């Protein structure tokens, strides 16, 4: 096989077929994909609703501490379905490849996707490949679609219609690791790998909470914009108030250190393996215990609650006992000296 991607790999001819066969079919191997039909034909499931999502992944660098663009694509898509209470089953993956991309790097990304999909119990059943001229994309971009099934009783989870005052807000672990892992590898600033992306598929974690009978009212993954942004969005959407305790928001020391150095607010930094879960007050301790007993929630914490005070706004009780309001992030955070 050639060492780098060329325009010929995208042209549909022999080279393209070889790439599809040797890389994508080889690593994404499953019964549906191997049929190589133009559309994947999927078994129907009675009594279930369908949940569907789509995403594009353009992260730079494509390999970062704790993950890569492929793992991110699989986890991100799975999590979008899982936080709606759905069980992710199938993914599609389309690739836009830059002419000159090392095929070795592509294989590494595809292997990573395969491993993650396998671990999460989902199948990658359809895909596409295009090649663009050198300089027209940054190494590779991945677009995904995810499909899952949703038990009708979990339908309210995605809208949060049942959220009410007194409900508790939990998070499954420390914030800001993903965003700061990317920043640290981009800037070339840090010289140790002390900050790793938290990129992870949380479907198993979420299912375990749902199956234990916790009446989950709402979930969101705290990706771009960070924890504070999704809380602000939730407060706005529900018209209720949110109160959060700074002391209870988990963060690891090295991540906090880098945030302080560059002037980033960790509450606004992206995560890729963190969700907020809103549950009835009476169930919060049980939910916390269940989370902490799962590998993806060992540092889970109850961070706050829904309130009728300050409708539509998120208030943070600061570590020193003061209060401040958290708005949404506008624009990306950049390293600053001031």
């Amino acid at each position, binding site marked *: 096989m050639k060492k780098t991607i060329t325009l010929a790999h995208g042209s549909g001819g022999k080279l393209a077929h070889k790439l599809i066969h040797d890389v994508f079919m080889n690593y994404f191997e499953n019964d549906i994909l191997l049929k190589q039909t133009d559309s994947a034909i999927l078994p129907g499931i009675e009594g279930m609703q369908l949940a569907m999502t789509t995403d594009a992944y353009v992260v730079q660098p494509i390999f970062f501490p704790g993950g890569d663009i492929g793992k991110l694509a699989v986890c991100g898509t799975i999590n979008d379905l899982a936080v709606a209470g759905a069980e992710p089953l199938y993914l599609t993956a389309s690739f836009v490849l830059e002419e000159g991309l090392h095929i070795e790097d592509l294989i590494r990304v595809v292997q990573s996707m395969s491993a993650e999909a396998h671990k999460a119990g989902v199948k990658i059943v359809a895909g596409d490949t295009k090649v663009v001229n050198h300089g027209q994309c940054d190494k590779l971009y991945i677009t995904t679609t995810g499909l899952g099934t949703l038990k009708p009783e979990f339908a309210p989870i995605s809208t949060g219609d049942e959220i009410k005052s007194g409900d508790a807000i939990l998070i499954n672990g420390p914030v800001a690791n993903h965003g700061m892992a990317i920043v640290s590898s981009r800037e070339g600033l840090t010289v140790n790998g002390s900050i790793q992306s938290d990129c992870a598929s949380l479907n198993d974690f979420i299912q375990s909470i749902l199956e234990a009978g916790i009446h989950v009212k709402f979930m969101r993954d705290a990706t771009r914009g960070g924890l504070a942004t999704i809380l602000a969005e939730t407060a706005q959407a529900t018209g209720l108030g949110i109160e959060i305790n700074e002391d209870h928001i988990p963060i690891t020391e090295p991540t906090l250190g880098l945030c302080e150095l560059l002037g980033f607010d960790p509450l606004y930094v992206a995560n890729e393996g963190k969700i907020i879960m809103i549950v009835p007050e009476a169930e919060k301790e049980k939910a916390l215990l269940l989370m902490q007993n799962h590998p993806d929630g060992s540092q889970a914490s109850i961070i706050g609650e829904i309130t009728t005070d300050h409708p539509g*706004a998120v208030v943070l009780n*600061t570590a*020193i006992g*003061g209060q*401040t309001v958290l*708005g949404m992030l506008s624009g990306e955070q950049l390293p600053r000296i001031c």
Partner: protein
Amino acid sequence: MDIYTPFQIKQLTQQTVDKIHALSAKPITLMEVCGGHTMAIQKAGIPSLLPPHIKLISGPGCPVCVTDLEYIDRAITYARLPHIIIATFGDLMRVPGSNETLYDVKAEGADIRVVYSALEALRLARDYPLKKVIFLAIGFETTAPGTAVAIREAQLMNMDNLMVLSAHKLMPPAMEAILQEGIPIHGYLAPGHVCTITGADIFQFIPQQYHLPVVVSGFESLDILQSILLLVYQIEKGQSRLEIQYKRVVSDAGNKKAQGILNDVFEPQACWWRGLGILPKSGLKIKHAYKSFDARERLPMEIPPTQENEACICGEILKGLKTPPDCPLYKTICHPDHPIGACMVSSEGACQAHYRYNQSSCNHESQT
């Protein structure tokens, strides 16, 4: 490093807040002149802990906020020249010039790189010998020595492709300008990191000539609260002294080595402060011996006259005369996604800090 355990911090913080409440009787206004203080105060929710008769206002201590339009317009003009790399601190990317920002120009394809240190600009110049690297040097006395180091290194290495566009400024002239405005301020929290370099004595003129107390403050919540307590004490007793709260890094005379390096490369000159106008000996210009690194010398381009939005009252906000809600543009057309004036651009500008953290004892209005 943690000087205190989290428990000790909580205890000391509570004690300090209690002491402020016990001691403070007179309604007073305290000014902090450092964007870092503005941010720290808002983030920690300090106004919500103080008695309501203590008012905290922000002065012109955000170097981004006081950078004039001409500087941004010039940087943008340079960015559009061929074979140029602009190296800038992230703070400057979204500052509006007359028409656009560096962010906008980057989107057009200009080579603009966010750096964390002047030494990174030096590295870029070394790595791209066929390009000219222009470093946008903003910041006060804290940051200027670093720029000076980079320039001296470049000279040692005989580099001819690094240029610096200096917007470095000095704090005392700005403080003097505020004092001369006669705004009713009862005490100052002085910038702790500027004083780390310069020494606290640069602010001795304030108690001596203006009979107002000054406390050089650190940036942790406890530091700021201790500084407020020390100011309240002086004010209640009718005293006016210069005190250092931030003793663990600030001395009377400062870092002499850093001062020496700064003075080797830079000399004070008059410069334009957004909101304050021209202040004598308030900016740092690159000295003649290093003029080959001065972007203004190497690229003496005419920049079209600048245009400020007439309704923008950033100047009065920077002087502490008005607060963000007083501005007709605040939250109407001026907000963090679309800043008109510099006070909204910088995350530590008074307007953005107010918008994000909602200053007035957390009145819980809905964020839109």
